[in-house]
């Protein structure tokens, strides 16, 4: 037989059909239903956001490899997955430069600069999202998909308002593009069934988060409350798609469980004690950084070196193999339980005091803006209209404002001394702004006082200064107008604080809402 020399190579000489490209394509496909729901609910712009993100990811990886003279890796489809994930974690209203900048950051900085696929130390899509949140906070967190409600379910949840879990479950209540829990869960469970993502991770993330919310949520075992927290803020998307990212999760099963629990617990901490509705991304990113540490300390021994195997070899009788939860997990759970119990104990003890202080702050601020009154009462008409509002956004001209309370102040002889409306605007730069507006019976403003103002010191915080608040005193108009740069000097103009336009704006909106409520509800009712 005349034959040239044949190829030789080390075995095995047959390989599984699964390739990187196949796995990545399946992951990408499993995200398609989520994307479709997102586009149907949020409109075509959402599709453009996703497409911009995916295309930029692929193009920037191609460009990087071209420029760096590397083998082109776009055919492994991992850039598509990154692009899809990034797109799905953005608000459907963001301008298109947001996904483009994010995608470039994800691919070039987080992935390619660290050596490409499998070398990134953070999940590229999430790192890009966090980068965008920090750099473009205002644009990134405006989820005004629906003008009527404005706030995302989690923002409502954090503000203590009611949310509709069923609508959240199907992704109908705003938030990021990929917020349809059912679509995400179907895709994720499919990947799990195909053994592409590790059950240890997503399960322990959800378990850790749920346990934390139940322990520290202050609501006991309230399933509705738990589901609302689980369905909002990207917890499910994070658990199934972000935390399970191969590169940034530990190698061993045990390590994966610890990693998942840490993400869940940290996510719970941020959710309950932090202020941002987008905090779950941060918790995943932070625990991503712990992965090398987990991998360094938790290396499972080969079967033959495990205690059980050694005992069998020594002729000791060993009980049948049974599933045992690894010790670190048990230890962590116990620690979490203890810490939870003690903290919730502290919370219960201090809860009443906190409430009392809140009440006191309100009464004190009412007194401040209506100094002639000795007592405050709520007329029935006002009470019923407040109940009607039931925590919804008040009016349509004031942004996301809520009327908290409205009282009538009586002087010593029982005559009306003034009116006070407590208003919250969610349009502050760094959270909610709550203030009380005191109004004369003839309609002129007695004064305003903030009960909640957490703006940036030196900027938004300056709205609390008398220089700004004193402008409101004595104004007798139906609606005030914010003037920038000290231009206006009319009866209805308020000079904004330079460098704090957002806060000034929110303040004026809140006062206007208070005035509106005074004229249209309180005055009418009399």
């Amino acid at each position, binding site marked *: 037989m005349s034959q040239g020399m044949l*190829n030789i190579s080390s*075995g*095995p*000489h047959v390989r599984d059909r699964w*390739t990187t490209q196949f*796995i990545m394509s399946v992951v990408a496909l499993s995200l398609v239903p989520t994307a479709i729901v997102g586009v149907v609910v949020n409109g075509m712009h959402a599709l453009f956001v996703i497409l911009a993100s995916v295309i930029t990811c692929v193009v920037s990886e191609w460009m990087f490899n071209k420029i760096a003279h590397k083998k082109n890796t776009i055919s492994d489809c991992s850039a598509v997955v990154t692009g899809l994930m990034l797109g799905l974690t953005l608000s459907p209203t963001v301008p298109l430069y947001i996904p483009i900048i994010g995608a470039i950051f994800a691919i070039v900085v987080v992935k390619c600069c660290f050596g490409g*696929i499998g070398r990134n130390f953070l999940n590229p899509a999430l790192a890009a999202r966090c980068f965008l949140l920090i750099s473009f906070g205002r644009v990134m967190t405006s989820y005004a998909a629906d003008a009527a409600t404005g706030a995302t379910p989690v923002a409502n949840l954090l503000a203590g308002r009611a949310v509709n879990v069923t609508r959240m479950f199907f992704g109908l209540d705003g938030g990021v593009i990929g917020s349809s829990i059912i679509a995400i869960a179907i895709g994720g469970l499919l990947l799990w069934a195909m053994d592409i993502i590790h059950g240890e991770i997503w399960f322990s993330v959800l378990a850790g988060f749920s346990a934390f919310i139940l322990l520290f949520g202050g609501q006991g075992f309230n399933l509705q409350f738990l589901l609302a927290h689980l369905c909002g803020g990207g917890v499910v998307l994070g658990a199934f798609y972000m935390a399970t990212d191969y590169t940034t999760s530990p190698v061993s099963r045990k390590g994966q469980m610890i990693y998942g629990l840490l993400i869940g617990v940290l996510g719970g901490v941020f959710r309950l004690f932090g202020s941002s509705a987008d905090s779950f991304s941060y918790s995943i990113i932070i625990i991503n950084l712990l992965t090398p540490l987990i991998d360094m300390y938790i290396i499972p021994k*080969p079967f*033959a070196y495990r205690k059980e195997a050694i005992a*069998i070899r020594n002729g000791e009788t060993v009980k049948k193999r049974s599933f045992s939860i690894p010790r670190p997990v048990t230890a962590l759970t116990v620690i979490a339980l203890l810490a939870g119990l003690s903290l919730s104990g502290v919370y219960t003890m201090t809860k009443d005091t906190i409430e009392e202080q809140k009440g006191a702050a309100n009464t004190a601020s009412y007194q401040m803006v209506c100094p002639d009154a000795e007592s405050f009462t709520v007329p029935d008409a006002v009470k019923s209209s407040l109940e009607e509002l039931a925590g919804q956004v008040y009016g349509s001209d004031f942004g996301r404002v809520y009327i908290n309370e409205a009282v009538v102040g009586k002087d010593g002889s029982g005559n009306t001394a003034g009116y006070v409306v407590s208003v919250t605007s969610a349009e502050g730069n760094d959270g909610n702004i709550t203030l009380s507006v005191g109004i004369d019976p003839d309609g002129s403003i007695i004064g305003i006082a903030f009960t909640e103002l957490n703006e940036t010191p030196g900027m938004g915080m300056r709205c609390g200064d008398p220089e700004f608040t004193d402008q409101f005193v004595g104004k007798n108009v139906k609606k005030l107008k914010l003037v920038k740069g000290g231009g206006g000097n009319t009866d209805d103009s308020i000079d904004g604080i330079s460098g704090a336009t957002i806060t000034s704006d929110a303040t004026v909106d809140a006062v206007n809402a208070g005035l509106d409520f005074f004229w249209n509800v309180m005055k009418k009712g009399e």
Partner: protein
Amino acid sequence: MRDTFMGGVHPLEKKELSRSFPLQAFVPKGDMIFPLSMHIGKPAKAVVKKNDPVLAGQVIAEADGFVSANIICSCSGKVKAVEKRRTLAGTLQMCIVVENDGQFTEAADYSVREELAALSNQDILDRVKNAGIVGLGGAGFPTHVKLMPKDPSKIQFIIANGAECEPYLTCNDRLMRSNSREIVEGLEIMLRLFPSARGVIAIEDNKPEAAEAMKRACEGKTNIEVKVFPTKYPQGGERSLIQAIAEVDFPGNMLPADVGCIVDNVGTIYAIQQAVLYKHPLFSHVMTVTGEAVNQPGNFIVRDGTMISELVEACGGIREGVTLKKALAGGPMMGFALSSLDCPVQKTTNGITLLDEDGVELAEKQATGCLHCGRCTTVCPNGLLPQLMYDAAEAHDYDRYEKRLYGMDCVACGCCTYVCPAKRPLTQMFKQTKAEILAIRRLQAGGKK
């Protein structure tokens, strides 16, 4: 007994290509080449020289030391040369070349049966040793060494390995179907040596006929049972079988005998029966010639020293319209690639697989960076962490590889490489790293002297 071992993979079986063809004796015509090293251990010493007449069954090279094995001539004729020839491994090795006279005159009458009862244990061991029997599963460990453990009373299981988990190969399947009685007799001979042991015949469930035949042959035997395992590679690995049957895991520096087990391929056990009851030395064994590139696959009883090219030609050569991309001695998982078909069949060659598609070449095209998906960890039958081992090996961090990751326990079964979606050459790296570490150990031991 567990149902199976942990980990493992399911490569395409491809056994249907050859499993319907019964064993047939192959008659070689050309020169026969006998490498002096067809086993683990020291190469044998040639005891014939050029122009010596030889007969089939004659010892032409003697075991050199305890861990070594006799080489038996498989044809009659005369010695043409004792020189270096190319062997399966692709290297030049000392071989005895015999000019085949086509008569196959045997050195003795191998048809006279002696009864086991008349033989002492020492007779059994001597006959196994003289017959030059080595493990026919692929490793080629001298069988007489395996049958003489430190403490024979500690042996609990004699495992007849008929799993044949390697894809494509079917010769052991056919052997169990046609010679089940002989295999059971061979197992009984082994059990004579180890009174406290039980015999287990392990078969994968993709060979129901063989399992049926073995069960029939075992009827009435109280100390032998047939165990059918689910089809999963590497079920036929020594450690996997022991893991499943004796429920023991043992580290790489221990032998099966240390945990009370002896595992032998059914082909080896058949050879033991022939050697002990008929004094028939090991000069032929069963083999499968198969693969998409061969015209007519089949199962054969092949004499050692037969040229592979001659065997392939007898199977109709390469199929028309197909290019032979890869020739393997053994199956695709653990077999090794041949650079040429012009080399002889050795004792341990249990198959020739001719593929029309090179999986490794394809894999190189699909290779990407490691995804850290963990599939390698899931399938490793020893519970190792291939992805971390690879990184340590690549960084030449031998200390971490050996002590922290137990990399020396890798049995090179290839499961991790098979499943790797990034197509990294894991097994290759591990084989190489193990060799490097052993070389360093030897150097250090030499330095101390």
